């Protein structure tokens, strides 16, 4: 049986948990148990029951709220002992990074972290050796196929994005949900966390945007920002800008992309009238697809763009909006 440990906070599921379920289904779809720890696990459990899994187990205990590595380790140690899985799968979140190595060490079991893929070789009949977990090494320059050794369960944490949420197979009916009681000695919890620190967050988090329409000096005047806004709306994209636009106050500072603004990595980055100074490029070079529109064929942005349109953005953008509307 594969045990997936989902992550939730205040009844809100961390979406990476779905990715981990997708990973579990790749490994062995026949017997998957999803465990949701923490207060208000029940509402999250109902959501997770939609997946094609055997059952969803909730674990609520005073020691799990607020989160502490000691509380989680102790509660999950007991839960694992009760459930007896072959694999324990977790999303490679910050919280997982905090407690999972401790949990694996407590149980003296192997852990493979930051896994990006599962490699199943044809069964050699020798049991577990037929599954390898792929993880990056040396800052991603190499990948390693890791085969965990020793008695089960083996712990595996999946890199965010290793599997897609839409890969999760849904069940024909809701999976059963049950509560599991764990024994935790509250005196084992040595941490006494304060209220979580909330960094003054930029109102716009461009780093999470899937599509970005970004404007540069080629937009010429503030009134013209509107056509970029229209394009962004048509594309379902966030609006961003290069430094001079934000310096001029045409768009707020929090929409600035570049080395003195935000670093973004959307699937689509549409650069309108951005020449592509290196200080801007380093803020968006991680974008999947870069489309640049610029009058100047020598603009450095074309060095990095996947698609380049040399021309007047005031002709091209309205045509694009028109095309998108159809």
């Amino acid at each position: 049986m594969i045990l997936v440990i989902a992550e939730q906070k205040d009844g809100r599921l961390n979406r990476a948990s779905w990715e981990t379920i997708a990973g579990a289904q790749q490994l062995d779809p026949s017997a998957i148990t999803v465990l949701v720890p923490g207060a208000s696990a029940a509402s999250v459990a109902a959501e997770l029951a939609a997946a094609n899994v055997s059952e969803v187990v909730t674990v609520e205990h005073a020691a799990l709220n607020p989160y502490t590595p000691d509380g989680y380790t102790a509660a999950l140690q007991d839960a694992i002992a009760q459930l007896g899985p072959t694999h324990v799968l977790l999303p490679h979140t910050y919280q997982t990074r905090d407690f999972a190595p401790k949990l694996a060490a407590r149980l003296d079991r192997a852990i493979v972290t930051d896994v990006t893929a599962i490699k199943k070789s044809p069964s050699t009949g020798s049991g577990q050796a037929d599954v390898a977990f792929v993880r990056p090494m040396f800052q991603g320059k190499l990948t390693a196929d890791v085969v965990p050794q020793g008695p089960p369960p083996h712990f595996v944490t999946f890199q965010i994005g290793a599997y897609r949420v839409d890969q999760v197979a849904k069940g024909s009916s809701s999976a059963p949900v049950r509560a599991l009681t764990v024994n935790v000695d509250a005196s084992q919890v040595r941490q006494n966390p304060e209220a979580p620190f909330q960094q003054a967050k930029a109102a716009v988090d461009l780093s999470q945007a899937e599509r970005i329409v970004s404007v540069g000096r080629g937009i010429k005047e503030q009134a013209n920002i509107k056509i970029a806004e229209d394009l962004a709306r048509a594309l379902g994209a966030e609006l961003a800008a290069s430094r001079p636009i934000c310096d001029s106050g045409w768009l707020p500072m929090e929409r600035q992309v570049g080395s003195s603004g935000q670093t973004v990595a959307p699937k689509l980055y549409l650069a309108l009238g951005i020449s592509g100074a290196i200080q801007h490029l380093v803020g968006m070079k991680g974008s999947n697809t870069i489309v640049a529109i610029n009058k100047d064929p020598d603009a450095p942005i074309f060095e990095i763009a996947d698609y380049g349109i040399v021309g007047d953005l005031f002709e091209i953008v309205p045509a694009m909006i028109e095309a998108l509307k159809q």
Partner: protein
Amino acid sequence: MATLIFWLLFLSFVGAFAAQVATRVRLIAAAPSTFTFDDIGFRVRRCLADVLFQRKTIVERPVAGLAHAFVFWGFLVFAGYTSVEFLYGLGLVDLTETTWFHAYRMVIVPFATAVLVGILYLLVRRAFVRPVGLGTHVSAESIVIALFIATLMVTYLLTFRFEERTLAWAVNWWVHMLVILAFLALIPASKHFHLVVSPITVFLKSPELGNLPNLDFEKEQVGLETLKDVGSKIVLDAFTCVECGRCQVNCPAWGAGKELNPKTIVLQTQGALLAGQKDKKLGEIYSEQVLWQCTTCGACENQCPVGIEHLPILIGSRRGLVSNGDAPDYLGAMYNNLERRSNIWGLGYDQRTKFVQSAELETFDPAKHDVLIWLGCAGSFDADFQKSLRSLFSILRAKQVRFGVLAKERCNGDPAKRTGNEYMYQELANGNIEDLTRAGVKKIVTSCPHCVKTIGADYAKFGYTVEIVHSSVFVEELTRGLAAPAPAGTHAGEGRVTYHDPCYLGRYAGKTDEPRALLTRFGAEISEPERNRENPYCCGAGGGLLFADKEEEPGSRISDVRFKQLQATGANTVVTACPFCSIMLKGAQASAGADTQFVDLMTYVDGKLRTIA
């Protein structure tokens, strides 16, 4: 009786002087020794120029500097007079009646007049004109000292008015001598201690601007953490400061309204030393934020007339902070880029390869090539700067220079070194030295002034020496004898440009004539901006600040201040010779919404050469 009283006064004032000096000497002796003595010839010449001829004092502030020089030269010629009068007062030997002394007295009269004029000018300037560099409040002690000096000259001149050995003469003599003694006792605890120590400090100042010896990790050196780590030269500097504020008014950070004031740094060191705070963290003495505002442009150190070195304390403190993990976040990101990709932007190595291929560059081979072109981070990855390099290649090819590039380059390490990440710097430097040595490189040409300084001067501290010149210097020599084309423009002012000296080229390397020679050779008419040649105003990129967020700091952007200075020349074309100046100033221009044109020097020259051909 009078002699006995004079002896008692003499001993007590000289004793007070000696005791205060001893405190300072002990503090210098207790500090780890960082005195250097290399290039004695240069040091002697510099002492003559800066101490005897008051070069640095006069050049930047001609009137006040000359007034100061009058006072200084007066002090020198008065040394003999004062000695004779003391020998007389102490009853040791009376030379006052000798004929040579009478002659000497006459000779120094014009000097006394010059001192009087000089000190009264300086007094008025300090008390009433109050230039910003002298600080916000008028120092009472400086006024007292100025009045003392004036009194000395007046009482000296009065000796010609009084009959010798009369009561009036005697009163005048006693006033003169007592003022000297009081002056002596006031010196060590005041900025006037520079009278005693500045010649020594100027002599001990490193011949290299921004001299930062490598840290020895084997000896567990981690940079300056607390006051007791501060070296002897820095301690001497702290007691030498004359508080003239040249470092302050030339500091680009201070000029842009930031908190950093190099003079304050020196005085804070002095205060903490005298207060015995040897275990106090430097980040607390100076404030960490202030330490990260320095662009390492070197203006403070270069303009100081008394031999103070500011960069070793600023960068030394940064080293201490970095060793404790206390670097600002933006540097953490840059260090990651250097560590993972060996370049400041963290871009993929394929981009350099792409450029090398498209520019048809050959891998350096000493048998085939005369020089190595060092691309640098900007040359490898900044598409904008690569245009300038293509111009350089075109010039070199036209002049049949055979050149190649290394198959692989790391960042030279300048951003790591100047921000205090010595470990990373040494890793990068050692890797590059190994590659350069293995490739058999003898001469390097680069368009990046930071690479010139680091590879040329800093790598020498590993025992690696190579000739490295900036492209402006190389191309200037290469194109000598070429005639300037007739101005192509039909209307006047078309050839007008302004040239921004990069700090690491103009100030550090002293190369100010070559870029100008190139510009004028090819028809440009240069409008000099405020702050030029060996004392330019920084673009704001140095010392890792290329990566800093403006929002985190007070004041305006240094690049915006500099761009306004360049704009004020009225020239619509700014010529730059450093990729980082170009990035900063173009950013400022874009934000200002100005239509100023930027041209890299090599692109300018290449364009003109094409019109000749």
